[in-house]
């Protein structure tokens, strides 16, 4: 019941005209960012973050999370109308969403997408409401070795479950960690790894990395594909929305299953993209007529959308309660929290309850605002995509570089963003995962501090990571996740040998 009272207090913080306006602005900007190629949610948050430095943290986080919701919705809009996913996490929505739009059922597809997305997001937020206090209380028992174990678990699950080559994941993650260690070392006061370059004294900002890797890199890729927008015109009428909403309860099983998948993938760092694909595959496999999938089956829109948004909001739980972001966007927001002088993690719940519960309440409100705003503005944003890419592309380039400069007001950051852009382009083409790099940059210092403090406790012995049941369990889960690909391969070859023998 504690949580409920806290939540009510949160609503009293979030439910002001000022905050509602911020939500609307955030959602609109988010949809814009989600619709435009090359500008995704992580990037949008990075670009907006420098503008929030002078804001009150509660208002700032409401603006940024609303932008995130908007971006998720915007990504679905382009998937359905243009067959172009505005966000990686809405790729699975194109499979059935675009065929539906081409059959003249664009409104139905969009309404299904937005309403089920809203459902998924609410499922994620309800989970956060119920669990976050408990997780935070549990995490208060953590000291440095446990924290290091949790960080280890996070990165192990990237390597083991990420789907990319484990070696490439390690490279990308390691680059993130080393970039985080450039500049002033908070423990010893040494200036590390700058190779006498003054511009590196302050370190490399994760904001620049995100803008380069996600923004410029994505634009180069878009340019290479030479894509053309050929959209389906859509006008959303209230009547159609209501009719679609009435059909939604029929898909209760898909909604529920997809929410669960999304929540799980959001809490573990699988992220929204993996969640939406997994949910689509599950829906297809368990459907009575899987042949209809890919040809305009509403369940093929509902499943990935629900999971995508459930994962997006559930990713906030580990960020708030443990200080570990569940997605690249959450990583950027967590970086923002630290810049605003907040310390994400269990102590945040006791130190700044108004912030935590204001944020959670704003998630309920923000998603409702997002569904309404996005339904009302579909035609507007669809028309933005009719502007040729040869105009939009360069304007996005300008926005990215201006954003990179405003992050710290350093001219060098423009060059750095360019380098990150080229790296992002090559990495994406060669299937190096980028999210682990960003996550490692944001939590790199904390992971290093946790490791060094553990070492000081134990006088340099690694056995501290097996010294009590809690830390042992965490490390064991981490190791299992890390070795997952090997275990899977061994199981496969064993089974292969067994069948070979029985033949």
């Amino acid at each position, binding site marked *: 019941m504690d949580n409920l009272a806290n939540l009510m207090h949160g609503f009293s913080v979030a439910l002001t005209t000022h905050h509602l306006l911020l939500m609307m602005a955030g959602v609109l900007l988010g949809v814009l960012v989600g619709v435009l190629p090359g500008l995704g949610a992580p990037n949008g948050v990075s670009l907006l973050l420098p503008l929030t430095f002078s804001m009150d943290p509660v208002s700032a986080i409401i603006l940024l999370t609303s932008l995130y919701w908007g971006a998720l919705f915007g990504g679905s809009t382009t998937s359905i109308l243009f067959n172009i996913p505005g966000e990686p996490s809405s790729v699975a929505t194109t499979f059935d969403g675009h065929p539906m739009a081409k059959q003249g059922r664009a409104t139905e597809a969009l309404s299904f997408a937005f309403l089920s997305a809203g459902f998924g997001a609410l499922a994620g937020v309800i989970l956060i409401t119920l669990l976050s206090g408990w997780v935070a209380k549990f995490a208060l028992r953590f000291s440095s070795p446990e924290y290091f174990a949790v960080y280890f678990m996070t990165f192990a699950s990237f390597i083991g479950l990420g789907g990319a080559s484990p070696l490439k994941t390690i490279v990308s993650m390691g680059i993130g960690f080393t970039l985080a260690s450039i500049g002033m070392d908070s423990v010893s006061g040494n200036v590390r790894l700058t190779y006498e370059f003054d511009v590196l004294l302050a370190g490399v900002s994760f904001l620049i990395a995100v803008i380069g890797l996600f923004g410029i890199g994505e634009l180069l890729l878009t340019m290479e594909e030479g894509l053309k927008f050929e959209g389906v015109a859509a006008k959303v009428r209230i009547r159609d929305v209501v009719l679609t909403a009435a059909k939604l309860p029929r898909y209760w099983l898909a909604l529920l299953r997809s929410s669960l998948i999304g929540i799980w993938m959001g809490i573990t760092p699988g992220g929204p993209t993996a969640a939406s694909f997994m949910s689509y595959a599950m829906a297809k496999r368990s459907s009575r007529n899987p042949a209809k999938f890919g040809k305009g089956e509403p369940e093929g829109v509902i499943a990935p959308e629900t999971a995508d948004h459930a994962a997006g909001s559930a990713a906030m739980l580990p960020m708030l309660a443990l200080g570990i972001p569940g997605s690249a966007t959450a990583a950027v927001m967590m970086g923002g929290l630290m810049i605003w002088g907040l310390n994400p993690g269990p102590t945040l719940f006791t130190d700044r309850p108004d912030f935590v519960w204001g944020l959670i309440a704003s998630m309920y409100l923000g998603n409702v605002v997002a569904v309404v705003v996005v339904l009302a503005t579909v035609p507007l944003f669809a028309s933005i995509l009719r502007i040729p890419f040869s105009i939009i592309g*360069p304007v996005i380039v300008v926005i990215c570089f201006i954003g990179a400069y405003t992050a710290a007001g350093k001219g060098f950051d423009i060059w750095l963003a360019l380098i990150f852009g080229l790296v992002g382009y090559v990495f994406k083409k060669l299937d190096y995962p980028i999210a682990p790099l960003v996550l490692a940059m944001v939590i790199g210092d904390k992971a290093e501090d946790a490791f060094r403090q553990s070492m000081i406790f134990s006088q340099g012995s690694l056995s501290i990571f097996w010294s009590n049941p809690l830390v042992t369990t965490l490390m064991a889960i981490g190791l299992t996740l890390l070795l997952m690909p090997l275990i899977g391969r061994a199981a496969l070859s064993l089974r292969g040998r067994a069948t070979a023998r029985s033949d």
Partner: protein
Amino acid sequence: MITRFWAEIATALATLAFGLVIVNGALEFGIGWDSSGPQPGAFPFYIGGLVALASLGTLVVTATGRFAGSADLPELFLDRDRGLRVLSFLLPLLAFVVLSATLGMYVATILYLVFTMRIQGRYGWLGTLATALGTAAFFYLALEKFFQISLHKGPLEPLLGL
């Protein structure tokens, strides 16, 4: 043109070099143990080493994949048409960065948008100038006036009294 095989090799060599640079840089700060715990170089040293090792691993995997006849390695990483498209976008972008650093970001924005729209996109002068000046003016008002954030400026803005 460049095949995926060579792109993989070049990237792995680059990340290997990055790892080694970090390892070398970390050695300067000591990677052992002193009175205050692990020395500052220890963590970067091991992470840099990990990056180098994983890069070596990618090199080996790529090389063996080539001999085993892996399907996607001989594929083109970038063919002529795609390469030209990327370059036609990348070169003006480079010019924009250089101009931003020398002439300031507002002037660079205007010149860059005029070039991409007028020369590359073949739009009329009116639309081009309206877009370029409009974008620069929007950022000027939003950042300098509303958010009080100043962008990098060159020698031209003071002449206009901005």
